[in-house]
């Protein structure tokens, strides 16, 4: 039976509701259930899942819908579970609460920064209020139009403020992690990136090698598009050029237009400070004017920046040579194609991996011929960005809740033609603290279920984080090693092993 319970004027954010929704199927008697706000796109998701009664198909963004498909009426139990979880505050101590931005501003002596993560359709209006009050903004929201982004950045530039985003999930300001960000050493290296796991990987690498971060500024994924013209990239660059605590500047980007690239290089030539420019997939490394180091991987960016800052870099490995050789020998005995399947939570990490392994299919393929026709079905060697919109429509991002990734992991391991699994574990604030534990349990379960009769699957992981993170990097590595995963602390090192294994087979 299908039941819908409607709660008007009962707004909760999508992540809270998605995380609660993912637990409802565990209630005995529930076939499927979801709790969502009644936006048009959410109604589409509920309709597709067969959870919405026809009379409730009118959009109302302030209406909460509880939709339950069960054999008998257990709606009371489901509603109790939902209400209990809604009443649990995520963070109870040390946080003052306010109903509106104007209210909140009055509660602080000198409010100077805001993290905004509300539905994109409402973001512009709220960000304008903040910029009007001279408050720098990190805008995590997506579904903000390019016109709105341009308008907000023009206001920010005119006022000399930071407007990092939209779709900017990571920054580190004065050593404080904002959004999904790692706890890192403070130091003299300033970073600028579209933001996300690229910035996390480089900042963590620098910190792990003994360097430190002065500031890590995000710009949003579209900032270097011609329409936006790099407004925030150049705002951030000026700030780091003038910051006496920043001696080395690092810029991380996907490939951009020649005009924008040349402008970036020219700006870096104007300063005496040394810099590192990481253009993912650019291919060649080079040094311009003896001070601008162009590299092609996130790890190289971290290493180069640490060296330039005066650190005596020593690289070590978390995996021993014999472990890789043993894995190769076991894979050779498989009677299968030994395809590799990668399931990433970090989009930039997945992108970097695709650039460095030939011929992989993907849902974010650069080469259109390698685009998966159906993202639910892997083909041969396939690398998936599980944080892409398809997987997060109505579901939480895998860095917060990896239920969808774990389901896909089982599907891939079950495939007898699969020999290698690659995944990332991204630590830091904002991320699920139990990612490694959940993966360890799942992998052991899958090994017992499917890896019988001498079938072997090699599990390889990259852990992005530091010892200072709440999860503690070395603890997470150890957890995964208990499931016989080969664990690396940089994405490119994990990918290099994948390449080596594939070439040996």
């Amino acid at each position, binding site marked *: 039976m299908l039941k819908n319970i409607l709660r008007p004027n009962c707004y909760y954010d999508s992540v809270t509701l998605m995380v609660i929704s993912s637990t409802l199927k565990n209630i005995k008697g529930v076939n499927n259930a979801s709790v969502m706000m009644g936006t048009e796109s959410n109604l589409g998701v509920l309709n597709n899942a067969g959870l919405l009664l026809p009379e409730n198909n009118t959009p109302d963004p302030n209406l909460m819908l509880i939709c339950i498909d069960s054999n008998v009426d257990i709606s009371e139990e489901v509603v109790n579970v939902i209400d209990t979880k809604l009443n649990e505050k995520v963070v109870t101590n040390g946080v003052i609460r306010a109903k509106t931005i104007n209210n*909140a501003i009055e509660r602080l002596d000198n409010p100077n920064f805001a993290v905004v*993560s509300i539905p994109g359709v*409402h973001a512009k209006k709220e960000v304008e209020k903040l910029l009007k009050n001279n408050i720098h903004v990190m805008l995590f929201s997506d579904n903000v139009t390019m016109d709105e982004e341009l308008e907000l950045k023009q206001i920010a530039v005119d006022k000399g403020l930071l407007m990092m985003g939209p779709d900017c999930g990571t920054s580190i300001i004065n050593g404080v992690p904002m959004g999904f960000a790692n706890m890192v050493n403070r130091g003299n290296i300033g970073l600028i990136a579209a933001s996300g796991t690229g910035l996390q990987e480089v900042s963590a690498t620098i910190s792990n090698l003994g360097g430190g971060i002065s500031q890590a500024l995000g710009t949003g994924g579209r900032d270097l598009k011609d329409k936006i013209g790099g407004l925030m990239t150049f705002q951030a660059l000026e700030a780091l050029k003038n910051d006496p605590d920043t001696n080395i500047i690092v810029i991380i980007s996907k490939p951009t237009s020649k005009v924008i690239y040349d402008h970036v290089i020219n700006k870096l030539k104007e300063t005496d400070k040394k810099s590192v420019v990481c253009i993912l997939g650019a291919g060649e490394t080079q040094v311009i004017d003896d001070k601008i180091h162009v590299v092609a991987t996130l790890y190289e960016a971290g290493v180069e920046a640490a060296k330039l800052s005066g650190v005596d870099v020593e690289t070590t490995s978390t995996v021993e040579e014999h472990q890789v050789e043993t894995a190769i020998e076991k894979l050779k005995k498989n009677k299968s194609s030994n395809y590799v399947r990668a399931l990433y939570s970090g989009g930039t990490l997945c992108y970097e991996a695709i650039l460095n392994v030939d011929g992989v299919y993907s849902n974010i393929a650069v080469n259109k011929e390698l685009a998966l026709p159906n993202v639910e079905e892997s083909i041969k060697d396939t690398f998936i960005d599980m944080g892409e919109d398809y997987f997060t429509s109505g579901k939480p991002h895998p860095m917060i809740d990896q239920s969808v990734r774990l389901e896909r992991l089982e599907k891939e391991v079950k495939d007898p033609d699969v020999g290698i699994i690659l995944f990332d574990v991204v630590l830091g604030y904002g991320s699920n603290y139990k990612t490694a534990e959940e993966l360890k349990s799942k992998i052991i379960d899958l090994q017992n279920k499917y890896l019988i009769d001498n079938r072997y699957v090699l599990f390889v992981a990259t852990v992005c984080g530091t010892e200072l993170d709440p999860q503690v990097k070395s603890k997470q590595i150890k957890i995964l090693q208990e499931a016989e995963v080969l664990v690396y602390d940089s994405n490119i090192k994990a990918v290099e092993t994948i390449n080596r294994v594939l070439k040996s087979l």
Partner: protein
Amino acid sequence: MNKIEELFNSKIEVLNVGLELFTQSFVDLEISCVQVEWKPEAGGNQKLLDALSLLEDM
């Protein structure tokens, strides 16, 4: 001192507008923070929102 230099040399005082999970770092590091329990104005009704905007512009 410009506003970004000022930010880099100030104690961070932050508004978190939206997902409460982002406040954990502020709590752990004892950063002054206000959690804005944001809800759409006018119940998210676009016609009312447009009317409110017009009034604000007057």
